[in-house]
């Protein structure tokens, strides 16, 4: 009896092992997850999307709009992971996600900007230390409020390899502009009330005069947030598609081996 039981249980274990190996092989590896990393004394959360392939990859820090780390941002991270990047969408708002402009503005207004920059520098450090990331190939991208912070990452992190900005406020201080090393891609709406074509041109001229690589495009008939498909009033599908193609080509040229 004991022998029978034993062989029976051995067979069951073997079956279970085979079944779980089968399940592992059949199911895709988990490619996205929420991760945490240290930023000063704080612990910050971020949404991490990974490419399917193994080895070291280029990486991209994604920086959200004033809505916070919402599903649209996570989708963007997933899209970049599908193209072979380790994509880290940081949560500057510590979990705050807004669905109305009033709430979103409250979140943006109460964000200490020095903390946000620290969170982003820490995100760079986090990515650079990951075994699946090539630390020489880390870029950043931000939209709206996050676009302004993407510039800040370029100013504060000299090892950043590419900086993409979508309707974010360009810096004006010559010392800040000269601190930028990464090539910069910018997509702006010509009808933006807060970042006027004059602001965009002034940065472009100052950065080019300082020998920086700047590729800006202004979209006629588009205001701020024109790439956000969830923002019905602002979304401009054609301009958004063109901007996305520019973004992926820019990252491929500057981050891919």
């Amino acid at each position: 009896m004991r022998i029978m039981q034993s062989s029976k249980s051995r067979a069951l274990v073997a079956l279970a092992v085979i079944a779980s190996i089968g399940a592992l092989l059949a199911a895709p590896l988990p490619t996205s997850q929420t991760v945490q990393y240290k930023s000063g004394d704080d612990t910050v959360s971020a949404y991490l999307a990974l490419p399917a392939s193994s080895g070291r990859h280029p990486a991209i820090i994604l920086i959200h709009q004033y809505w916070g780390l919402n599903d649209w941002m996570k989708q963007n991270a997933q899209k970049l992971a599908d193209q072979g990047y380790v994509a880290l969408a940081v949560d500057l708002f510590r979990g705050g996600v807004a669905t109305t402009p009033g709430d979103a503005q409250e979140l943006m207004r109460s964000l200490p900007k020095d903390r946000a920059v620290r969170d982003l520098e820490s995100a760079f450090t986090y990515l650079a230390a990951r075994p699946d990331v090539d630390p020489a190939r880390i870029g950043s991208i931000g939209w709206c409020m996050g676009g302004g912070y993407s510039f800040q990452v370029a100013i504060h992190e000299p090892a950043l390899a590419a900086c993409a900005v979508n309707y974010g406020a360009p810096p004006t201080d010559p010392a800040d502009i000269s601190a930028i090393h990464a090539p910069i891609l910018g997509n702006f709406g010509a009808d933006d009330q807060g970042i006027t074509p004059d602001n965009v041109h002034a940065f472009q001229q100052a950065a080019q005069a300082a020998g920086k690589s700047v590729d800006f495009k202004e979209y006629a008939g588009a205001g701020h947030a024109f790439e956000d498909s969830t923002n019905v009033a602002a979304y401009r599908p054609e301009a958004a598609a063109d901007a996305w193609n520019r973004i992926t080509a820019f990252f491929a040229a500057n981050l891919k081996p």
Partner: protein
Amino acid sequence: MTALRRLATLGLFLAVSASGATAAPARTQIARAQIVSYLSGAETVSGYLVSPARAGRRPAIIVVHGDRGLDEWTKQQAQRFGARGYVVIAVDLYRGEIARNTEDAHELMRGLPDDRALRDLQAAFTYLAARRDVRTTKIAVIGWDMGGWYALQLAIHQPNLAACVVDDSALPTDRAAIAQIRAPVLGNFGADDRGIPASALQTFEAAMQSAGHAADLKSYPGAADGFDDSSNADRYRAGAAADAWNRTVAFFVKTLGD
């Protein structure tokens, strides 16, 4: 813009009086309100100046608007301080733009370059310090919500600032930057502010104290951000607003003189 310039050339004389919210007897003074311009880096920027019609050098206050821009409410605050005998300049960080709604405010605020805003405030300080009616060692700053953040940035970067008041604003977190603040800081906050938790106030106060500086932050129960804005009917809390105003007036009397 042309309308603003016309205003500036006319020069408006206003009789402004302290509001009824003031507990102290209103000391109505004649003050002159006008649009002035001054250099900020390579740019010429404008501000709303209220100057009391009194001889001699006066303490001065830089007023920094919130996310809606230099609107009528902000100008009224400048007038209230002007009525108390201060030379006041309300800066216009948005270069003439004023938000009509929350979406506008967002679009303008996120479009404002941080470095430019700080440069504008430094330039306002320099402008006031060069005026013959200003006591150079008695220049303070006050800001609401977005403007409070920039007021604190000025306190970090302008060692000669005499006092700093913030209402409903984000607070800096970097200890090295906080340690640079020389001016005493007063703050008024709504306890129901969803963006700025009580822990943020405590962290800032602790950082100020460990650097040997004074910070007096008060949190009003039952009030959210915007509680002292009488033009915002939903948020306005008259009692808290009056208390915050009295605290502010007393703080300026103490730090700037009367």
